[in-house]
């Protein structure tokens, strides 16, 4: 059986946070009500018991990812219940990569030890910055010191695989403060980093503050300088860029996220969680109460059936995010399209400029380093309007 015919990953969404960050437009709610969380965990377990929307065989090595929101806000017992359900219904068959996102402000040594005991072998910390004033500006609940402490505890708790998220282009951020953040973070010895340029999403408090002129972003050129600083610094430190925004040492890639970029099927449970079976996406209600109530009766997913053209476009722009590129043989197999032929004219200028490279033997198309910086120009080739 082909990899794209099996569930390769399972995602569990926790829509709760201690406090919503100013830039966040994800499905998450500031919530400390233990009762709501318990009811929510129970609903997730019920959904797992139904098998979810994606009706495909599960790869025994399928990865697990607890994301959010902030999964670490859930009481341990709730997490344990969900883990038990995942194992019971074969979504989690060890040994498999199992990641949980943790907000440094919600971590303590005991909790981290408990998570490790539950079977999680990878932690992703939302560090974002190691500059306290930048952290406050974007509404994070933790300090730089707490982030470094959390990483140290994670190691003590037995986590060998630790990742940190960083954001550049923050209001008030400078090249110097970014460099300092990178240096301090790399010094902790973590082997995985996700580094994103700040995106100002409409409707977020951050967007309002910027519109009102109460905050100012670094200009386009400074942001581009920051981006280059990140590339250069992490390369020097021995990190491999394996995806547009992801870096790893010693091939410690996020297997789970690679499933997305390879455009393989994944199951998903929880409010607003989105599963994919290779031709359609299924999304559960994003409102927590609606989600819980839906679980009490029969469950309905918002289904997005993708057209052949949409599938092909997504396969390409997701695949090209990886430095290893998109597998064109698989594109032909799955969608019956010869990419090199169909898009020859539109791709030509990008080959000429050295932004795209093609390995005809392996049938792999990839963005070069310079191509990645302007990836959207290439991605647009493959979407249909």
């Amino acid at each position, binding site marked *: 059986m082909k990899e794209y015919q099996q569930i390769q990953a399972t995602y569990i969404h926790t829509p709760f946070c201690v406090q919503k960050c100013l830039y966040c437009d994800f499905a998450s709610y500031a919530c400390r009500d233990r009762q709501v969380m318990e009811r929510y965990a129970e609903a997730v377990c019920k959904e797992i018991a139904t098998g979810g929307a994606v009706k495909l065989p599960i790869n025994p090595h399928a990865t697990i990812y607890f994301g959010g929101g902030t999964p670490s806000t859930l009481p341990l017992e709730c997490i344990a219940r969900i883990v038990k359900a995942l194992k019971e219904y074969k979504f989690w068959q060890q040994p498999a990569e199992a990641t949980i996102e943790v907000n440094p402000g919600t971590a303590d040594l005991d909790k981290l030890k408990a998570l490790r005991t539950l079977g999680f072998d990878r932690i992703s910390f939302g560090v974002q910055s190691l500059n306290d004033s930048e952290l406050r500006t974007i509404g994070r609940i933790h300090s730089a010191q707490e982030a470094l402490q959390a990483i140290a505890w994670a190691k003590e708790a037995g986590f060998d695989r630790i990742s940190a998220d960083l954001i550049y282009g923050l209001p008030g951020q400078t090249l110097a403060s970014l460099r300092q953040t990178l240096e301090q973070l790399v010094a902790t010895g973590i082997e995985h980093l996700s580094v994103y340029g700040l995106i100002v999403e409409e409707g977020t408090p951050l967007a309002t503050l910027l519109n009102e002129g109460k905050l100012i972003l670094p200009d386009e050129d400074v942001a581009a300088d920051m981006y280059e600083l990140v590339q250069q610094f992490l390369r020097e430190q021995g990190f491999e860029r394996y995806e*547009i925004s992801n870096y790893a040492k010693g091939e410690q890639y996020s297997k789970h996220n690679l499933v997305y970029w390879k455009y393989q099927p994944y199951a998903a449970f929880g409010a607003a969680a989105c599963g994919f079976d290779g031709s359609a996406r299924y999304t559960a209600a994003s409102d927590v109460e609606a989600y819980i109530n839906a679980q009490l009766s029969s469950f309905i997913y918002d289904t997005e059936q993708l057209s052949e053209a949409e599938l092909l476009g997504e396969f390409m722009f*997701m695949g090209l995010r990886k430095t290893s590129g998109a597998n064109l043989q698989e594109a032909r197999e799955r969608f019956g399209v010869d990419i090199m032929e169909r898009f020859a004219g539109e791709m030509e200028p990008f080959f000429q400029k050295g932004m795209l490279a093609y390995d005809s033997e392996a049938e792999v198309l990839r963005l070069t380093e310079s191509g990645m*910086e*302007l990836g*959207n120009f290439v991605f647009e080739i493959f979407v249909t309007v």
Partner: protein
Amino acid sequence: MDQSKIRNFSIIAHIDHGKSTLADRLIEYTGTLTKREMEEQILDSMDLERERGITIKAQAVRSIYKARNGEEYMLNFIDTPGHVDFTYEVSRALAACEGALLVIDSTQGIEAQTLANVYLALDNDLEIIPVVNKIDLPSADPDHVKREVEDVIGIDASDAVLCSAKTGIGIEDVLEAIVAKVPAPSGDEAKPLKALVFDSKFDAYKGVVLYVRVIDGSIKKGMKIRMMATGAEFDVTEVGYFKPGLVNVDSLEVGQVGFFAASIKNVKDARVGDTVTDANNPAPEPLPGYRKATPMVFCGLYPVENSDYDNLRDALEKLQLNDASLVFEPETSIALGFGFRCGFLGLLHMDVIKERLEREYGLALITTAPNVIYEVFRTNGEVELVDNPAHFPEPTVIDHVEEPFVNATIIVPKDYVGAVMELSQEKRGEYENMTYLDESRVMIHYALPLSEIIYDYFDRLKSTTRGYASLDYELCGYRDSNLVKVDILLNGDQVDALSAIVHRDKAQVRGRQLVEKLRSLIPRQMFEIPVQAAIGNKVIARENVRAMRKDVLAKCYGGDISRKRKLLEKQKEGKKRMKQVGCVELPQEAFMAILKMD
């Protein structure tokens, strides 16, 4: 009705001085329409006219008024367009009348546009009846306004009618003044038919409906008529008058105002100012004053989607059915593809046509900056009319160039005289004279290049005088000017649709403004784009649109793919709407950049 009981009149007023309100009040007072009927009628008129508060097409209404002397009179009110673009149409509408109400806001006084139309009316021998409006307002100063009328226009204003169209005060006095002062028509019913066409409109069922004033003879249903300017002949199918809706009758008699239809398919055969006569018994001479409307302002209209070209042509043809002054011919631009070079009476006319194309025909258009028509005298003795800057010949083959000038009349409070003169001087104006209308207001005359008027003269005039200045102008011929063509190059390629004709002394500054403006309008692309302004081979200004350094979706995971795909689709769609010029993607606003410089 006996000719002696007919009164044909129009109303001259500056915008906002109350023309429409007064007209409504007169129609209402005479019982021509009820209030509710009036609202319905008004709803039938063009949206654009109501929104802009201006009259584009002439209108006419027949009312029957029983005067204080007990006699019934037929009052024909002809409403004229109220904008300098339509001066010729106004003059023909006035020529259809024997008198005009000069309506002046008692709180404001005479404005340039009013004055221009009063002179038009005097040229047509109309009896002018001063009407001082808005006397209900606390700041009304009727005596001052009357004095101004006497000083400036030189007509007796001692028995000017005071009224408030809003409250209804003095409406009957206005009607009595019309009856008493406007001369009755004095045509000869026995003579061969002579009728003046003062407007026309296209009706899908009737064909062209001609708005006419019968000067001599009469028009009857079934008769064969001839248009004297074009020689075309038609059989009259319908005759009637306006209430203001069309009311059919058997004939229009001498002195009357009304309409007729004759299965005429094109307004080109029913031009404003033409004389209608009896084909079997023609008048020896047409009425004086006819001329073919000539466009003064030109621009290129291009469909955003190339596939809309045929739709654009169809739409222009349909508008032309109703508007003989609109001209267009196909043209090709390297930058914009296939489109049309269109000629208009003026800027307002251009705006109205553009807006109607977009609104009524759902077309997305790119418009190039408007320009005037130049007379280029080549060194080989040939004279060429250039209505598109892209076709301006090379400097080496040009002996000299002439451009249209206008006589501009500006009325302004005296404190702004300095500012107006400074602006007019900057705009290459030639000072002619200045007169004090009263102790506080001044009338200034300048000869100005029309190109400066359509560029930004009026906007600048309004802003430097805080809106107090009023402007009127009329073409006064062509004059020698030292003009050059400034070309714009993007990434080394000339963009024909961005070329502009400017005075040599200003070429440097305009070139610099243009490239700066374009730099700010052109989005960063994958490579650096030099934006240059050049005269011939000589580059006079340069800016660079710097290359985009980074454009890539920062993050994309499982739950986010649809949204990110839609984002990419939207970006791609946006780029599709831009015009690809060489390898540069140009937003539509860039083509209007030449016009809007600030």
